[in-house]
């Protein structure tokens, strides 16, 4: 039974001696700043919003900012090592890795001129990211407005709408915004479906690089969409371009399913280009985990029914999706599974004993990958190659 790699030794103790009380013991931004923010929001002076870098959802974020929030969107350039380094230096060392990446992104966005930062809320540590990052960035000296979806979560959509109106733009045309929000959902569905097609087929392109070229132009088309009609048009064209690419696909290719944590298993910057590495080896890749399946169509109790041999309760934010997808892939005769997560991601660590049982029951190999900010690219290459060789040998034998 394969075991995941161990954590690296880290610092074990620290002391803080600050005898003077310089500010009130609170993480909440002080009242003066709140007042200033409210004033600026009212007069709509804050205009440039930035998200963190996240997978291929950048067009959807752009559409959301420009069409729903009615503010400018500040796109971030390609990620660099230096940007992540800022995040690593300014966060506690054993916090989960996405926190560090996102903090680095935010610092970079503020350097580039963003006024508004947008952060999600979620059921695990993610729910606390926004507040802590805001406090860290303010301590670093930045001034900005944080639009934190972890606030107002008790009231659901209404709470979020109030939060948006309060912090970002009080003059949003609400009915118009709701229509555009539906278009955002459509765009996410289309992006996910494009990505699914890409993952399944890009490994077998005759002309190397044709899928990547089509992908880039599809993303460009998505970025310039103004309404749902544009989105559908862009999707149709992108799909047509994908389908037109000549393939040389064997009847029974090696198929790998990726499961794992929401951020690391999808985001190519955090998982060191896992998608591209697998595709380059000529593998058909499947990944059930995406926004569409986790948010737009997520029905946890029903999803759990399919994996009820392994699950009694919902084990965590994406755990049911991880286990259900793993079981589906294993039962569907996939050659191998890859479980990707960031270091210290508690819900996904707790999924590992379950995945080990799935692996035993269906005799399907699982490669457990843990990423932290120091994980090396070559180390990953070696592991993936070894895993691929093992799978292809297993496949040869069973023929």
């Amino acid at each position, binding site marked *: 039974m394969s075991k995941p790699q161990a954590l690296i030794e880290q610092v*074990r103790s620290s002391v803080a001696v600050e005898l003077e009380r310089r500010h009130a013991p609170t993480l909440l931004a002080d009242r003066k700043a709140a007042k200033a923010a409210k004033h600026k929001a009212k007069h709509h002076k804050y205009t440039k919003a930035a998200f963190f870098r996240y997978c291929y959802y950048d067009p959807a974020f752009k559409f959301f900012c420009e069409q729903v929030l009615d503010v400018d969107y500040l796109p971030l350039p390609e990620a660099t090592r230096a940007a992540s380094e800022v995040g690593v230096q300014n966060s506690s060392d*054993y916090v989960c890795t996405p926190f560090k990446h996102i903090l680095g992104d935010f610092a970079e966005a503020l350097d580039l001129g963003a006024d508004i930062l947008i952060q999600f809320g979620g059921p695990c540590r993610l729910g606390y990211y926004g507040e802590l990052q805001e*406090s860290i960035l303010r301590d670093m000296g930045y001034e900005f407005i944080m639009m934190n979806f972890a606030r107002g979560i008790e009231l659901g959509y209404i709470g979020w709408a109030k939060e948006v109106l309060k912090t970002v733009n009080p003059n949003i045309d609400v009915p118009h915004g709701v229509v555009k929000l539906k278009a955002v959902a459509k765009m996410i569905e289309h992006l996910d479906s494009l990505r699914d097609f890409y993952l399944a087929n890009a490994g077998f392109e005759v002309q190397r690089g044709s899928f990547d070229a089509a992908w880039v132009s599809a993303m460009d088309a998505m970025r310039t969409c103004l309404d749902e009609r544009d989105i559908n048009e862009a999707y149709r064209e992108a799909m047509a371009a994908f389908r037109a690419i000549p393939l040389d696909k064997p009847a029974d290719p090696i198929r790998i399913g990726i499961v794992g944590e929401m951020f690391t298993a999808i985001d190519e910057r955090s998982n060191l280009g896992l998608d591209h590495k697998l595709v380059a080896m000529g593998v058909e890749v499947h990944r059930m985990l995406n926004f569409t399946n986790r948010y737009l169509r997520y029905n946890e109790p029903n999803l759990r029914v399919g994996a009820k041999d392994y699950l009694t309760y919902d084990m965590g934010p994406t755990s049911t999706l991880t286990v259900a997808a793993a079981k589906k892939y294993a039962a569907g005769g996939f050659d191998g599974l890859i479980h990707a997560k960031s270091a210290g991601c508690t819900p996904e660590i*707790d999924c590992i004993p379950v995945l080990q049982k799935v692996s035993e029951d269906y005799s399907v190999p699982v490669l457990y990958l843990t990423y932290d900010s120091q994980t090396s690219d070559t180390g990953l290459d070696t592991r993936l190659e070894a895993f691929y060789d093992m799978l292809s040998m297993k496949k040869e034998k069973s023929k």
Partner: protein
Amino acid sequence: MPQTTDWADVQVVGIPRALLFYRFGVLWTTFFESIGRTVVVSDPTDKAIADGGDRLSVDECCLASKVFIGHVESLAGRCDAVFVPCYPTSDHRSGFCTKFQSATDMVRNTFRDDKLRVISCEVQNARKVKDVRRAFCDMAARMGVAPKDARAAFKAAWDAQRAHDEALADAQERTLRRLIDERRAADAAAAAGDDSVARPLGILVVAHPYISHDPYLSGAVIDSLEDMGATVVYADAMDHERAYKKSFEFSGTMPWLINRELIGSILLAQDDIDGIVLISAFPCGPDSMTDDAIMRCIQGTPILNLMIDAQSGTAGVETRVESFVDILRFQQKGGYVHE
């Protein structure tokens, strides 16, 4: 739908002495005893249990979780079934680490080949008596207990837990009051020119209850604090309700109940104590974020942040605690710089 009573034959219930046992243990044991079952609580943590848990767990799990798995293993063969409840984060401001949500299925899968039976219930919101009662009464129904008896047992259990919590909170209050009195007496004596009356040293220990009250995990820290003459106040044992409400002054979006109570206790007790010691088990998820927040935002009181893991010997801990207490004592005498 007829209720299945597939747990009716469970007569001896095993409860691991780990994780939330330190928070809700009285409720659990009283409940099972009141419905006529025998309760076996696993022995206090020792090296064998910790090592067993380490062997069975995934390497990356936190120390507390490994110890928990060790306790479950030690119960195998000593009971008919092990009780592992599930505490999901259904309320966004009073949830738990996802570890407590996945504990049931983690144990079920880890011990699947050993045919270990697990009984469980899903408590949606631990702060709402209705939610807790529903979970426990549903479980009792599966154990073949009549609804009326289950409700009576639950009431007894809930009251017992509350009485237990109140007694603990009272003890902390008394300690804090004693510290204030002693400090006043020392000040009065010093004003009168008598330096022989020592000022007390109050230390607030901030840690999850399953860390601070488990002698194997944090005993070395608590012992060396007491050996140095410090008075220890436990943040986790202070009045939960007051601390929870107070925590909203510190953070609006913090999702964890226990961390909220700890931070609320810090805010409540900060003026009456001399130093704060944070203890967390490596690598605790919630603590990785809240400790950072505490270290940066709580000012005016020196803070020692200690991380314990399976490898750390007591010597390292003692030196750190000693030097911290020295800082505090020095501070009491006027500090490094005489202004």
